[in-house]
């Protein structure tokens, strides 16, 4: 089996992120403790999600330009993997929050109502709801060309409306989430230099893994639809 260079790079980076993420030294902070290592997984999921959604948009624009159904399949697959990454981001975030934010006197799920009001969580929920709606919209249109066109339009419309919101909402609500101003973990004051050595490779690794999964899905879809495209 011959793998292209970026797939090998993804394997190496992820091995490094997992092994290094659990073994390399991290700053000792009283509240976070060892849960700080979740940064290599939780934050990377959101980065991968946003990058994959952006790739999906690019393919939607390309579809509207030249109406080639291949671009529609690509847009759909990247959006699917992006949604999957987003769900994993929620899962890892939930584990993290249950150690740091949840009220220790009650079971962790009792804090759900107050945690969900976090601006970053609202933004993420909006992104996932939008892509949920995108898949419902796709499944409710029978004609292939029309489905591709209408869903591409919705994809572009929703994505461009999402971005100002991610910028607006944090300025309306108070937040416990790190990285209040701008992107968490990208800011140089937020993150220790030792952690940056693992964090950046981990982001690239997870994103490449997402692209890998998407490329497999795209190939399967191309085979299924080979009579049409």
């Amino acid at each position, binding site marked *: 089996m011959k793998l292209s260079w970026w797939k090998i790079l993804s394997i190496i980076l992820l091995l490094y992120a997992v092994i290094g993420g659990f073994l390399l030294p991290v700053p000792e902070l009283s509240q976070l403790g060892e849960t700080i290592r979740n940064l290599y997984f939780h934050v990377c999921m959101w980065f991968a999600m946003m990058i994959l959604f952006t790739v999906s948009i690019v393919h939607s624009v390309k579809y*509207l330009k030249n109406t080639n159904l291949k671009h529609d399949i690509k847009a759909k697959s990247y959006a699917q993997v992006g949604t999957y990454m987003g769900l994993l981001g929620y899962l890892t975030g939930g584990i993290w929050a249950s150690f740091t934010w949840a009220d220790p006197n009650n079971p962790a799920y009792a804090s759900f109502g107050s945690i969900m009001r976090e601006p970053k969580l*609202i933004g993420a*929920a*909006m*992104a996932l*709801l*939008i892509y*949920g*709606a995108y898949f*419902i*919209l796709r499944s*409710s*249109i*029978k004609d292939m060309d*029309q489905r591709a*066109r*209408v869903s*591409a*339009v*919705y994809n*572009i*419309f*929703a994505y*461009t*409306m*999402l971005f*100002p*919101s991610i910028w*607006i*909402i944090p300025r*309306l609500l108070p937040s416990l989430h790190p990285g209040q101003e701008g992107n968490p973990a990208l800011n140089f004051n937020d993150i220790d230099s030792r952690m940056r050595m693992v964090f950046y490779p981990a982001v690239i690794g997870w994103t490449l893994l997402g692209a890998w999964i998407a490329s497999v899905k795209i190939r399967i879809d191309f085979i299924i639809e080979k009579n049409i495209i």
Partner: protein
Amino acid sequence: MRAYNHFNALVKKEILLELRQQHSLYGMMLYIASTIFVLYLTIGNAEAEIWNALFWITQLFICINAVAKSFLQEAKGRMLYHYSITSPTTFILAKITSNVLLMFVMNIINLVLYTAFLGDPTSSYFGFMGISLIGALGLSLVFTMLAAIASKAMQQASLMAILGFPIIIPQLMLLVKLSKSAFSEIFRDGAPLQIVMLLVALDISVIFLAIILYPFLWKD
């Protein structure tokens, strides 16, 4: 000039349709009245915060119902006719304008009935009315575009809600925040103006997106 004439004719046609097909206009009014009556019976007198939240929720549902039918009632043949006589940009701008006008009327009816039944906790009624009009503008812009998208799919009415809710969240949050300034809540100097500017910027971007994207939805 020609586009302008087309635009005028299309807006006029929409308004005439609303006035002649009375079931839709009076249906909307009855929808507002019965929604508010149900609210009145279930909650009675509400505190300012709940009053505000419920007002925007009713506004949202009224907008979905009022705007949804603007594309759903267009028969296939009529769309084809529009296609042959005018450009997509003119068409969507006319739809947007007529929907905004319709929503303004519905907004005033909603507000008057709402205060009649549920009381008036605001400290500046006309300030709140202005804010609700800004809200009606933003809501009808976004949902016109979504109605255009949903009209291509099955189960259009419920689909519009699914497509629209995640997109409208930030606008609603801004509006709820802004309307607190009509409840004599103290704001930082210039903060309400800042929110209004943000809402206007969002509205402008929706109009631009509609102009860019509608031509792709238009052709079948």
